[in-house]
């Protein structure tokens, strides 16, 4: 009996102790009870309105009825969806569910604005990478990542925290409780905020002084073993110690660890395309360089599924005198080898 009704289960890797069937039944019962509560509350609401209809404007009672209706509808939607999910999960195999999801994705209204590739399944489309023509070469690639803006939400968060702590501190000082715990917290927050704001401003100034990096490519998508032209332009007003362009491929894996969702990346290929040392960029005279790019012949193509991926990108890294190293990345799509 104790074996059947265990209070706690254990998780060993992807396996769990306990009955899968009982778990499924419990889940279905939970959602069914939500559906029942929602249906009954909506039925009561509608019946009460039919039997004693209200007239007049919006008053407190009307607002209560609206809230009742919203919560009832939410219970029906969540409960109904949950029951349908539980039944589907219990009665259909993983393969059949995958086919159902695929068929639902084929319905135009339910699909993304950029639908998945039919000719090359699991390879992301390159529509967003080829919609900007280049000046020297066919396409100007969009930049994907600027570390500066990571600081912005942190700065906003810290300033909000400081505001709250400062208000309390002023009140504490007023009340002659100068060295309260929250006053010390507020001082710590101010010190941390100064440091973060310094990093943000420094990074922002670096971006302005370095200027924009543009990358153009002769063709897209790319194929393993084939040769292309890339054109790099680095504007700004600074002395550059070194600037390099690399083609990088990373595996990406997303997994659940307890209640957290983690993403891990592993670089599997990082090949240099060009490197230039010790040169100066003046305003209105950007550094420009055009060179060959060859995708490794036996490379894996770009791949994207729900929890896994293979991502290709061109990475411009550099070091300007007096500033930390900078990095700008430009995603690209690699297709399977043409002779496949």
């Amino acid at each position, binding site marked *: 009996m104790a074996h059947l009704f265990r209070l706690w289960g254990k998780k060993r890797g992807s396996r769990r102790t306990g009955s899968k069937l009982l778990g499924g039944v419990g889940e279905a019962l939970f959602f069914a009870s939500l559906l029942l509560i929602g249906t009954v509350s909506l039925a009561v609401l509608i019946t009460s309105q039919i039997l004693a209809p209200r007239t007049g404007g919006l008053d407190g009672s009307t607002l209560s009825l609206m809230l009742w209706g919203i919560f009832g509808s939410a219970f029906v939607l969540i409960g109904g969806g949950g029951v349908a999910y539980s039944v589907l999960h219990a009665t259909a195999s993983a393969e059949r569910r995958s086919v159902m999801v695929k068929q639902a994705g084929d319905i135009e209204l339910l699909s993304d604005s950029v639908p998945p590739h039919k000719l090359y399944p699991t390879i992301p489309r390159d529509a967003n990478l080829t919609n900007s023509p280049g000046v020297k070469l066919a396409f100007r690639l969009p930049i994907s990542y600027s570390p500066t803006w990571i600081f912005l939400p942190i700065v906003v968060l810290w300033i909000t925290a400081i505001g709250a702590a400062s208000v309390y501190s002023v009140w504490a000082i007023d009340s002659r409780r100068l060295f309260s715990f929250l006053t010390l917290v507020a001082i710590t927050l101010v010190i941390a905020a100064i440091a973060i704001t310094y990093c943000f401003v420094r990074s922002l100034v670096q971006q302005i002084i370095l200027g924009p990096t543009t990358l153009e490519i002769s063709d897209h998508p790319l194929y393993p073993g084939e040769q292309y032209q890339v054109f790099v332009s680095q504007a700004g007003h600074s002395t550059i110690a070194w600037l390099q362009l690399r083609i990088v491929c990373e595996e990406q894996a997303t997994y659940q660890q307890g209640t957290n969702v983690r993403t891990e990346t592993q670089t*599997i290929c990082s090949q240099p395309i060009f490197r230039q040392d010790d040169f100066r960029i003046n305003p209105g005279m950007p550094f420009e360089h055009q060179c060959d790019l060859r995708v490794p012949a036996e490379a*894996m193509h770009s791949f994207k599924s729900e*929890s896994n991926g293979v991502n290709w990108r061109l990475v411009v890294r550099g070091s300007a005198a007096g500033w930390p190293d900078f990095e700008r990345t430009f995603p690209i799509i690699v297709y399977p080898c043409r002779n496949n």
Partner: protein
Amino acid sequence: MPEQLIARPMEPLISLTIRNGQKAFQPGDELEYEFQVDAVEAGEIQSVETSVMWYTEGKGDEDIGVHDFHRSVAADVKDGDLRELKRFHTTLPNSPLSYDGLILKVHWCVRVRVFLGRGKETFFELPFQLGDVPPVHLEIP
């Protein structure tokens, strides 16, 4: 001589064969396979599903993608006997190719899943290679 594997994880016995006689394919190749279920009463089988599919293995959660799928229930076949030999064929897609990476692997297989009474089910799968992407070895300069 086509390769034939027989699995007996539990009753029933599933016999699955890739008729092309090869384990490596290129995108656009025709994959022909057949299967037969045995050692079980006809009335015990409720449905049979066959899939040509890929699945991921590695650090991330498993993803699957089904390229070709067939489901048969007793009402679909003559005499309601799902044990009879069945043959299917499909043209293999351009992607994803089989891949043996560091934290991600992509495998292709033909999978037969048999559903029995009282919620029991069993499956057997036959792996094959799509494309010729070599395994990854970490060599970053």
